[in-house]
């Protein structure tokens, strides 16, 4: 991959305001506008715990190359008001080169923002808005920011239409008028705006997707063939369900809102037993409730997929903020010896690819797959390249699917211990294939059995089908080469890729490995990828260094490997990873 792709800093903007100020709407429009102009972009959002009307912030980073994480600081902070900034201050790193734009009628920049040395510019948004019928400050501010950034007006207009078009002309017209007024006023401010490096727009506008990680995960599900979803609402997974509900109906499937997660996981087991690829989505508290059901899926060899959109834990934790702290339960939460799949999406676009892969693997291997996403992937939006068919290679190869038993097999045994461990399955409606799926240990025919030989045979086949399978190269994304390895998993990949790219650009060869498949861990492939690395830093967003401990338990890491793990809710930024690399060096050499 082109070295430039991952370390061009692009431009980072935060728009903040109290509830109802329209900060997030302005961010969504700006994302669509930069997308229209031909840039890639990433829009994160932060909301307070209030159900409605709390403070909110939109954080946008965009540039000519795919944007995979938030940067170290914001170039531009747009404060629609300062009423609630105290709750966000630590999410708004600024540098001395940053600019703060604020309304001329507002108070001074609050001290909580700290000694950043950023320049402050007061603009007459409020006064301008008051001259317009139904004028809104956020739209005027958006227009002036668009002008500062050098975006063409038609891009802003397209962004407004794409974002608010569904609301009708009554909302659209005053919004556009506000943006236009702000745009006109902003052009001659005489400031030096933080433009995208290289200036101007990127290559001609190619077809790109504008989607959130939760939407991408929903798309991955239906691409993988999922036609039944049962789920119980939970932050931050609900948008995935909201995206899926009407669309599954169009595809001939359905979504059933269950009474709880104990029900939802069992519902998808039932639907999958009926032959329909099935999935549920949840977050930590719901995943905890699903564990017994997942064990049933493993034992009865019924394919199911759980997309777990992680949030701060334990317990109710921080529902609206991100953390990678459910790896332990995903790996180890099932009782008994219950081998299953654990995957993690490496980015917003990758939510689609990894969920699709998870569905196909679960179907083919007749097991449970837990796909880990998290709040920051799920609830952020990005402009990305569309996914190709078969995202993980295998061009010309038939996509993985469930192995169905031939009807004519007179010696059909549902749980036959085959060489691969995969036993061809029959489905209700198939004459002659009747069996009772069971979570009780059973023999090859499915008859309950507590004999040692049956237990061992079935345990071994359920393990073998996972460990002997060839997962190809999709188990990880590996970028760059070097004696130093930054090893990570899931959503931390974005910041790690950027940190590694910056190290390489600074002449310090660094390889980044981001694990997409965590269980079964492709140990040999990972050992090979680690090679004789002289420095290994395992990066993740949780307190307990969960992945680091897991890799150690499987004797993958050499003694000198170290860990950079910190809990959420603040997003991982490349700069702190570089600091951790720096700190790690002297200790190892000592």
């Amino acid at each position, binding site marked *: 991959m082109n070295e430039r792709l991952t370390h061009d800093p692009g431009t980072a903007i935060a728009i903040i305001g109290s509830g109802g100020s329209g900060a997030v709407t302005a961010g969504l429009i700006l994302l*669509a506008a930069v*997308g*229209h102009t031909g840039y890639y972009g990433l829009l994160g959002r932060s909301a307070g715990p209030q159900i409605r009307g709390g403070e909110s912030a939109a954080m946008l980073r965009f540039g000519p190359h795919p944007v995979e994480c938030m940067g170290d600081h914001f170039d531009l902070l747009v404060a629609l008001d300062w009423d609630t900034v105290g709750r966000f201050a630590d999410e708004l790193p600024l540098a001395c080169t940053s600019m703060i734009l604020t309304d001329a009628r507002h108070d001074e920049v609050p001290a909580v923002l700290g000694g950043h040395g950023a320049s402050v510019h007061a603009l007459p948004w409020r006064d301008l808005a008051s001259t317009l019928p139904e004028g809104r400050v956020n739209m005027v501010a958006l227009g002036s920011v668009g002008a500062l950034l050098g975006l063409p007006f038609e891009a802003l207009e397209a962004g407004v239409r*794409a974002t608010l078009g569904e609301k009708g002309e009554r909302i659209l017209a005053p919004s556009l008028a506000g943006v236009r007024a702000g745009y006109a006023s902003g052009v001659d401010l005489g400031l030096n705006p933080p433009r995208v490096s290289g200036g101007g727009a990127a290559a001609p506008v190619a*077809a*790109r*997707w*504008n*989607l959130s990680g939760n*939407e991408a995960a929903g*798309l991955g599900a*239906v691409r993988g063939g999922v*036609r*039944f979803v*049962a789920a119980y609402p939970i932050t931050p997974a609900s948008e995935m369900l909201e995206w899926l509900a009407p*669309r599954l*109906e*169009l*595809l*001939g*499937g*359905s979504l*059933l809102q*269950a*009474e*709880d997660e*104990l*029900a939802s996981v*069992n*519902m*998808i*087991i*039932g*639907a*999958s*037993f*009926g*032959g*329909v690829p*099935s999935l549920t989505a949840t977050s930590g508290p719901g995943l905890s409730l699903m564990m*017994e*059901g997942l*064990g*049933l899926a493993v034992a009865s060899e019924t394919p199911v997929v759980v997309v777990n959109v992680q949030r701060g834990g334990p317990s109710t934790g921080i529902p609206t903020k991100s953390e990678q702290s459910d790896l332990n339960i995903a790996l180890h939460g099932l009782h008994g010896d219950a081998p299953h799949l654990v995957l993690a999406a490496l980015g917003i676009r990758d939510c689609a690819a990894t969920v699709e892969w998870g569905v196909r693997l679960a179907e083919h291997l007749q097991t449970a797959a837990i796909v880990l996403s998290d709040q920051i992937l799920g609830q952020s939006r990005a*402009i990305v390249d*569309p*996914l190709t068919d078969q995202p993980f290679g295998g061009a010309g190869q038939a996509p993985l699917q469930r192995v169905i038993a031939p009807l004519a097999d007179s010696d059909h045994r549902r749980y036959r211990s085959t060489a691969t461990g995969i036993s061809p399955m029959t489905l*209700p*409606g198939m*004459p*002659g*294939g*009747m*069996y*009772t*799926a*069971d*979570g009780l240990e059973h023999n090859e025919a499915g*008859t*309950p059995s507590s004999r040692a030989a049956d237990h061992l045979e079935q345990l071994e086949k359920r393990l073998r089908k996972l460990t002997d399978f060839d997962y190809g190269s999709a188990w990880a994304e590996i970028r760059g080469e070097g004696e130093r390895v930054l090893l990570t998993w899931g959503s931390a990949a974005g910041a790690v890729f950027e940190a590694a790219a910056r190290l390489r650009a600074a002449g310090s060869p660094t390889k980044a490995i981001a694990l997409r498949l965590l269980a079964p861990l492709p140990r040999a492939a990972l050992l090979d990828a680690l090679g004789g690395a002289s420095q290994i830093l395992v990066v993740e967003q949780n307190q307990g260094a969960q992945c680091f401990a897991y890799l150690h338990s499987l004797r993958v890491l050499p003694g000198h490997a170290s860990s950079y793990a910190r809990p959420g809710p603040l997003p991982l930024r490349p700069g702190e990873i570089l600091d951790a690399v720096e700190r790690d060096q002297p200790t190892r050499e000592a």
Partner: protein
Amino acid sequence: MNAPCETPTRRAKDYRSAIAPVWCPGCGHFAVLSAVTKALAHLQLGQERVAMVSGIGCSSRLPAYVETYGFHGIHGRALPLASGLKAARPDLTVIVTGGDGDGFSIGGNHFLHACRRNMDLTYIVMDNAVYGMTKGQASPTTEADWRRSKLTPHGSGLRPFLPATIAFAAGASFIARGFAGDPSGLTTLLVAAIEHPGFAFLQVLSPCQTFRPEQKDWKQKVHASTVEPASDPIEAARFLQSDDGFALGVLYARRLPVWQPRNQVSATPADLEAAFLR
């Protein structure tokens, strides 16, 4: 295939699998198994078109003994598993079996919501007012002063759960009660339950020979319900208020909207992807 061949008549024994039940001699659950096979034969349902779904308990062992598709799931979760199956495969006849502990205690929440959801399922609860499989503890339907369990030596002290009343309050559209000691009545009720369009709840008084031998008395206690099956909720409520728990028959039956998936294919995933293009 339109081959002009007659499907041979299926007999009750064709629905019995080769697996021998684990049940104690004299257990009421045998009569339920027999009624299930007779009802399926009466309805001439294709074995491969029926799915028996259960949780955990002595009663929940039943699916393995029936020669149809089956799923012996986990304790308390038979109803959701069956609901998912029925949502995905509306073409199947789905029958759920289990015990009073499975259905009213650990699975109590699912019971309420299955009644409300009114999917086209048949739910047979083999009620013996005890946890048989775990060797005789009090269940939700056990009398408050039953002292024979070591876990509740002074009795549970809890008012028993009223399955029919609670099913009614939760919106069930078909409520019936049968008795293992009345196999032909039970078969008739089961046929009616399977034929009912919607969620049909059939409580079967099914004595536990081993842990509740005194349930031999049930033979004397049961009586045919004197009222016609009510379809009027006010009448049904009145009847349920005076119900002694031993009235047998269809207690309530009413046509209510059935939860059904709306699966009509009108798009492909590629169509959905197009909406992301900006």
